[in-house]
């Protein structure tokens, strides 16, 4: 008997006044992918910066377009000088 496929979840964390707001999606569920993509694009339009990072946060890159296969995306408001 073959083992059931392991569901891989991906996470989008938005830094905000609550600490962070998380959105999780399963690549195999189109509605979840669409929801994550919609949030990503809405925040990008507001000037947020998106980082695709591995679980440890050691490897990563700036993300200009939503990547459904990204392990974890962290979105932060744009930096400004103080």
């Amino acid at each position, binding site marked *: 008997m073959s083992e059931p496929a392991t569901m891989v979840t991906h996470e989008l964390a938005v830094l905000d006044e*609550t600490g962070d707001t998380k959105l999780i999606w399963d690549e195999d569920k189109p509605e979840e992918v669409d929801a994550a993509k919609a949030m990503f694009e809405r925040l990008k339009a507001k000037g947020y910066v998106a980082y695709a990072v591995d679980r440890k946060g050691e490897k990563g890159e700036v993300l200009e377009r939503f990547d459904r296969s990204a392990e974890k995306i962290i979105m932060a408001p744009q930096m*400004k000088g103080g």
Partner: protein
Amino acid sequence: MAGEDLAGWAGQTTPVWPLWTGSTASATADLAWANWSSLGTTGSVTTASEVWQTWTYETGTGVSSAWYAWVVTPGGASLIEQCTPVEQEMIRHVAEDVARRVDAGRQRAEAAQQKAEQLLREHLTPEQERAWQENRAIFVTGQSGKRYQIKEGHTHNVFEVDEAGRPVREFCVHVGFHVPKADNVLAQKLALQFNEAELLRRANWWDLSQPGRPLVHRGQ
């Protein structure tokens, strides 16, 4: 006429200054202070706690105490006493509501900081985790290979450091005061690691190796 305007403010025919000082028009700043602190002594009384106690009419520090005291004049006619019982009850309800909102806001901020702290620590190396626990600061290597130290905070908390770990440049750049400090630190860390040039472009910098700590770059 100016004199009449002043009398109007005082609600009577005497000028404002004597009312503020409780004395004649020749009264000094010391007398004004003594009146404000309501201690009836000289201007040598300057402790903030004594003034606070007077403003709150007690030793408490709650917002409701301050609110209640604003409508109470120690030793004099009380505005709240001039209100009807129903009005007095309304004032107390407002004061209590204000205190509840302030407390709720404080709890939300504390919860947000704890959540942000958890997210930050998920993205620290073991070495950074130790440094954060000990010093509330982490060292980060930027994309360029330069080393930075990020201290807990929102502003003036990022430093370029030399081989010995000494700060040589100070940067002020942040994502805004609405996010908890730990979120700001995480955002700065990610920016240095993966978007260093953009962070430096947006930051204000100061050269710590020069006398007077000159500003050498204004953020764009």
